[in-house]
Structure formats: C-alpha cells, structure tokens
C-alpha cells in the first residue's frame, strides 16, 4: 500500500488523520542512502561467503526518499509530548528541564567518535571524565567508590544486589531474603529475583512510612539486605531511617538505596550518612540527562568502603596524573558490554559541573518547595494520601472524587492532557487507592504550578457537573483513548503482523 509522503494531515498542526507507517510510505526502488566513494573494488560475495549464508534477497526495509523520511519523522515528532513542549509532572520520573549544554557536549567529536576498545593512553579525556564523575557521585551520596557501568536504574539495582551477594559470599554468609517495602518500584522486586534472592514485602504504615515494627519482625540472619528509597515512593522521608539501618545492620544485612528520588535530598542529606551501603542513581532523572522517550539512562552504583572491592570492572582510575583501567580485587565482573552509557555520563557531569555543590542543594530545595506548594494548594481538591510533609513529589488521591462523582484518577489524568499538561503518574505507588503522583521538579515556575492547580480544580468541578465529559477526555489530542485490550488480544507488534 503506497501512501502520500508529503502531507502534514497527520500532524496535529493540520487535520486529524493518522500518519502512515514508514512501510506504507515506501515505494519499491526509491532510496535515500549515500555512501562514501572509497576507491575499493566491489567484491563478489559468493567468492568469500559460502552460498548457504548469502541472503537471497535484501532485508525488506522501507524504501523512501530522504525527503519522505524527514517528513515522516518530523510529523511523528509533532505527535509526541515532551518536556520541551510543556509541564511533565510525572511522579517518580523527575522530568525536569534538560539543559541544552549537555546536547552540545555529546556533539563533541573528541567524545563521541572515540572507539571504546582503545587502550587507555588513547582515551585519557574519557577516563578523566569518568573518574571525575565517580568522585562527584560519591560526594553527593556520601559513598567511597562507584561504578558507572549500569545502563539504567534497574541495571544498577541488579548490580547492587550482586554486590550484596558477593559481599556476603566473601564472608561465607549464605543469605536468602531481601526486604522491600510494599510501596517500592516494580524494578526492586524484579531485580531481587534476578539477584537470586527472595522478596519479603514490608508493609507501610498509615503514615506512608515503612512500618518499623513489621520490618524488625521480618529481620533475621537470612536477610541479605533491604532496598529502600528515601524519600520513598510516596514522596515522604523515612524519618526512622537511622533506626532501620541499625536494625538491618544488626542482623548483618546491607542497606540498598534506590536513588530514583535522589533529587529531593541533593546537598541536604546523604544516603551514606543515613547508613546505606549501596546506592544507585538515575542520572536521567536527578542529573537531567534526558529520558529519550524511554531511554537511554544511566544507573551508576556507589558503595561504601567495604563493598568497593566487589565493584564491576574494569574501572577508570587515577594514577598520578594519568588514568588507567583497573579491576577491583574481587570484582563481580562486567555488567555492560563496554563502560556504560558514556555519553549519558558526560551529560551528567556537565550538569553537575554547572551546578556545583550549592547549586545541587538549590535544586533539592526548589524541587521540594514546588511539590510541597502544589500539594498544599490542592489540599481541598485532591487531598494528599498521607499527612506528612512531602519531599520532591506528592501522592494525592482521587478516591474522594471517585466516590462522589465516579470519575477515576485515570480520568483526571486524561483530562489533564486536554488542559495542556502531561498527566501525573497514576495508580502508583500501588498501596494508595486512586493514586495521582505529581512531581513538579525544580525547573517549573510557580505560575506553571498555579496553572496546573487551576486545571485540576476545573476538572474536579467538571467531574461533579459533567462526569461523562471528563471520562471522554482527551478530545483534542492526536488520538483519543485507546482500546488497550485489543492491542493485547490481537497482538500486532510488527508491520508484517499488521498485514497478516
């Protein structure tokens, strides 16, 4: 099926049509590619590759002109919301503004053209950059050493759990369980399983904090450790963290800090000081390397002194005024094909260098101020799920609204799209009914937050007046609500499946 390539009808700027797929735009014989003139003679492939391995026909890729490709992708980009277009208060995701200087950094030929397999003498700049970043991350978390290899937060978690395991094993200490609060992010339990441990879920108290008594009850000498975020996923600071740390350490367990919420405490308090042994960071959250529509991120792991010998290797290391690769003595080995998501690391370092220590503290202050302000302003519209002062994000509940009007949290989120804002995170943490989790981040202005409050108020009012109207939102987006059940029932995950 051939389709026009030059029409913007699919773009929200004009019209309401769908954008054809690149395959639908394809026409046999059309092409865009241009390759260098090399002066190398063509090779008869069959003379060097056994016949059975030679592809009979080329891979069925799209055949488009450069012009049609540009039109297609540009129109797709106009069907995509982003931080650069507007407020994205998605809780737990820290969708702050991503400074453009970081894009510029990744454009440096001296960084982006370096092959990862070169000897250290040929990549001194990269090694220095990485060592600097490790040092900064240790300073921020209060830790002794770090690895930059993990490609995202979840990879950091699993790395941390393997470190935990290596540590216990080095002491010939067999342990079986890892404790996780019921408010934890799904990657935590999934990582625990992959780390070869069993999950013991710790309930949260009515105040949204870990139930310390329950936690203590769950402790035992088969507990390898605990995974916590602090502030936790309810946006609350675990005030009993010192008591918790003592209890876990008391049975020989380690404390793992899920750094997804680090933004709240930069320069205010450090995981190391709270008693954590292992910390991962989501550079794509706290350090504003953008999220790329789903990735790439980077999930460095920092550890206390006693865990440093187990870190993945090879590691960049300073040696006098030179930099070398070195593997920690009892390294668990590689967790990435090369050295981690290097250009993401470069972005994060640029961000940290611009801010410096006091700048990072300002980040945390403003992030918390914005969230606290938002929560307070919404108190009579969408009450907070918990009473305690929130940190950088607040979990509100639409339960009251639902009971009163039948309009659910998801409907509120969808209606918000209609008002020009991205939705909050819905139905997470799982322990809060009709949860709406807002994380305004520090880069949004007070006016923006006020406008969000106004929008939510008007949605709440409309919910009373015209609940069906709210449930039908959004209307003016490129597409409206989707039939998600159909997508799963009749899986069409490729162009070929679509035409089967």
């Amino acid at each position, binding site marked *: 099926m051939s389709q026009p390539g030059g029409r913007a009808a699919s773009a929200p700027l004009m019209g309401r049509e769908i954008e054809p797929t690149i395959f639908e735009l394809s026409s046999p014989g059309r*092409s*865009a590619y241009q390759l260098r003139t090399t002066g190398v003679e063509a090779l008869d492939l069959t003379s060097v590759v056994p016949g059975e391995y030679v592809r009979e026909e080329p891979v069925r890729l799209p055949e488009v002109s450069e012009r049609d490709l540009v039109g297609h992708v540009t129109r797709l980009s106009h069907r995509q919301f982003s931080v650069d277009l507007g407020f994205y208060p998605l809780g737990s995701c820290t969708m702050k503004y991503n400074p453009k200087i970081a894009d510029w950094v990744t454009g440096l030929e001296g960084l982006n*053209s370096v*092959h990862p397999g070169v000897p250290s003498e040929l990549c001194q700049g990269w090694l220095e950059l990485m060592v600097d970043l490790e040092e900064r991350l240790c300073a921020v978390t209060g830790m002794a050493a770090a690895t930059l290899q993990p490609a995202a937060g979840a*990879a950091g978690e699993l790395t941390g759990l393997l470190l935990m395991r290596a540590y216990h094993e080095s002491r010939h200490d067999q342990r079986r369980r890892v404790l996780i609060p019921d408010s934890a992010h799904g990657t935590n339990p*999934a990582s625990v399983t992959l780390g070869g441990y069993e999950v013991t879920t710790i309930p949260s108290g009515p105040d949204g904090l870990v139930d310390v008594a329950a936690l203590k009850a769950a402790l035992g000498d088969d507990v390898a450790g605990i995974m916590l975020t602090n502030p936790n996923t309810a946006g609350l600071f675990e005030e009993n963290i010192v008591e918790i740390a003592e209890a876990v350490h008391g049975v020989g367990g380690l404390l793992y800090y899920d750094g997804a919420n680090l933004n709240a405490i930069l320069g205010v308090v450090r995981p190391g000081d709270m008693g954590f042994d292992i910390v991962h960071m989501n550079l794509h959250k706290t350090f504003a390397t953008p999220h790329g529509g789903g990735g790439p991120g980077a999930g460095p792991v920092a550890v206390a002194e006693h865990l440093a010998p187990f870190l993945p290797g090879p590691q960049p290391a300073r040696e006098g005024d030179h930099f070398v690769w070195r593997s920690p003595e009892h390294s668990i080995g590689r967790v990435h094909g090369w050295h981690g998501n290097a250009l993401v690391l470069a972005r994060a370092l640029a961000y940290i260098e611009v801010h410096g220590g006091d700048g990072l503290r300002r980040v945390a202050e403003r992030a918390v101020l914005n969230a606290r302000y938002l929560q307070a302003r919404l108190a009579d519209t969408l009450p907070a799920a918990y009473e305690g002062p929130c940190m950088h994000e607040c979990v509100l509940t639409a339960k009251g609204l639902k009971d009163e009007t039948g309009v659910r949290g998801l409907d509120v989120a969808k209606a918000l799209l209609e008002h020009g804002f991205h939705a909050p995170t819905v139905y997470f943490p799982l322990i809060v009914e009709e949860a709406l989790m807002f994380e305004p981040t520090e880069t949004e202005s007070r006016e923006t937050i006020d406008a969000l409050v106004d929008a939510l108020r008007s949605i709440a009012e409309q919910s009373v007046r015209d609940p069906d109207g709210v449930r039908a939102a959004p209307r003016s987006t490129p597409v409206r609500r989707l039939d998600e059940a159909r997508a799963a029932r009749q899986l069409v995950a490729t162009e070929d499946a679509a035409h089967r």
Partner: protein
Amino acid sequence: MADYLPHTDTDLREMLAFLGLESLDELFAHIPEALRLTHALATPEGLSEPDVAARFQDLAALNQARSSRTVCFAGAGAYDHTVPPVVTSLGSRSEFVTAYTPYQPEVAQGVLQAVFEYQSMVSRLFGLEVANASLYDGATGLVEALNMAHGSTGRSRMVISQGVHPHWRQVVKTFARGTGYEIVEVPLVNGVTDWSGVDLGEAAAVVVAYPNVLGAIEEVGAPMNLAHAHGALGVVCANPVALGVLRSPGDFGADVVVGEGQPFGTALSFGGPYLGLFACTMEQIRRLPGRIVGETLDLEGRRAFVTTLRAREQDIRREKATSNICSNQTLMAITASIQLSYLGPRGLYEVAARSAAGAHHLAARLSEIPGVSLVSDAPFLHEFALRLPVSAHRVVHEMAAEGLLAGVALDHLSEGESCGVRDPETVLLVAVTEKRTREEMDSYVDVMKKVVA
C-alpha cells in the same frame, strides 16, 4: 552559582509564606537533624555553562583516538559506520529526546509509532516474528535471552560458543551469579566453534555468534538443530550490519536473536549509549523482556499504538516479571529505525558488501607482509583477526601515532576470557567499514609494514 531554576526571591518568599514557613531550610525540618548536612557537598563550585564547555573541550582534546586524529579500523562490537546528518538531526529532535516512556499514548504516538516501526525492522532483519522496543546493549541482550531460555525450558545450563564477544560472556557470567546458571563454553577450533565434544544434556540455551568475535562466519543451522534436538533454545548473537548480506538467523531456526544495534546510526560514543536488539519467535512472546508496542484503535477508530502485553513487566508483575528492565534505549531504537529507513534494502546491502570488500582488500594486502597472517581461514565478512609477529598492543600504540587506529588488541579485549586462539597478545582484530577508503588502507599497510619490520 549557575542553575536553571526559575524561582525569583518574590516567588520564594510567597511560596514559603503560603506554606507557613520562614526559610527553605525548614522544608527539611522533619529530617533527623543529625543527618542533615551542615556543609556544602564536596564537589567543585558551580561554573557557568561556557566555563564547563571549555573544560569539556579540553577533555575531548585529550582523547587521541578521536576521528579527527585517527582513522578507525577498530571493530570488535563497535563500528565506525556512516551516520548521515539527516539521521542525527531527526534522531535528536527534542520531542523524542525529552519525552518519558510513552505512558500516555494519546500524546505519545510519535515515540510509539517510531518504536513500532523499529520492531518491524528488527523482526525482518533477524527473521523472527516479534522484536521488543530495545534493551540496553548487545551484552545485556544476551543475558535476557538466557533468562528467556531458562523461563522457557526450566533449565539453567547455558552452552555458549567462545566465538561470542568476550565482554558479553563476562556480562553473562556476572549476572549468572544471581540466577545461578551454569555457563558452559564451547571452544573455537581454527576460528569457528567446535560443537563436537559438547554435552548438551539439560541445556537451556545454545548460543552462537554470527559472525563471531574473530570475524568468522560460523555455521548457524547446526547449533540451532543441536539445540532443538536437546530441547534447548537456539540463540544467535548477530552482527546486524552483516545481515545486510547474510541470511537471517531466523532462517536457520534460531529461537532468539540478539545483536548490538550501535552500527545503525549511533556514534562510537566510547561504548554507550548503544542498543540491544532482541527478537524471538511468537512462542516466546509471554517471556519477552522489556516493552512491546502494539497496534490498536482509538475510540474513534483511528489506528494508534500503545505499549502492550504489559503484564510481563516489572511494574505489574514485580518479582515474577520476565525482566527488571524499565528504562531502555528508546532513542537509539528510534535512531536505528531512521537509519535503516535511510539505508533501505539496497543501502544496507551496500554497507555490508562494501565493508566486506574493504576488509578483504585489506586482509589480502596485510597477509603479504612477512610475519603477518590471518588467524583463521574461515570465511569472514568485514572483520578479521590478524596474527602479528609482535605485540598487538604495541602495533595499536605505534600506528595511533601515525593517525591510524589499527584495531583492537585481542588480549586487551578479552581480559582473560578465551577466544580460542593461542598467544592472544599477538592477535589484532581489524574491522573495515564502508567509510574506509583505499587510500586509508594503503597507508594502513605501509605503516603496518614499518611497525612490524
């Protein structure tokens, strides 16, 4: 003092007043005092953007192995293929770069459709029915493939050719510490895997590289058949550019194919962010790790895309999820789909064929140098292993001074993992892409002659 914060003094005053607070410090009053920092973080003071830019320019200049100083003949899993400006400029559109995972499909059709197109292309490239929305990189892709094999067979014995990239095998071993898999390595003989002596009993997966780390085009059908005969999944680690001319692993019966997608539009980038390509048969769909985008309709009947089969994922299934992956490498996946559309069938073919032509030209010329020879006489495409009369590390070092990145020294790469060749310290892995000119190769040969003389 530089930052990106919008708060004016008035904003701060009024917002604090609204909260009944006197100072920003009070925001943290509920945090135990003993924990609260009383001094600034031990990081250097903030600099302005232009100062930071100057610092990064200095750092960048310290990397001798940058393209403006050395012509790249290094491969070994990371390749210097063409990335045209059009792909870079489309792939860096800020709507893609600054979006989150597409949780609200009504306003995320851009990313969702781009990923759907990516999945479609990976599926065709690998010759398998379904592909996911990306994994971190090739190495962790292989880990996920093994987890899938474990889930599918209930077994934990992973039989892996030593032709698989040594870093990938290291990563597999690291993660096997958690999952407890037994890793059985199968040696290479004359550069290709020797499956003859291997006990495949209770194997969950049989893994082969195509082409392998030495560049050799290995038999793929045989190990797949072996796998199936023993109830294991057949897993192929494929070089995706090579598939421009080589038959798809799916054609040989592979159940899972993983690959490093960097060659599709992503710069060398010192090793990341790259792109884990992953495809499998429909049979394994419920065990597929990571995100999948599927087609559906909106309530007005318009075609639309959405992440689907979400019940596999960690946020819903938690400790029973097929994988812990959450953030993946979407932006690189989008870029890869743009690059593959740019290339089209003929372009991808040309990239592979020209790279191969260059590699064969160079290999032939180098083999004429006394003391220099190919490690194996197995067929190869655009990458080969060279036996040198001197240390490969020395050659890399000395040729770099002449503006050539000669390749990757095998022992530097393998860090103790065996790649089935003796004296790895004298083995150099050389890769040639479609970008390398005859002139560059001639100069390579000349310099090599001097260096090994």
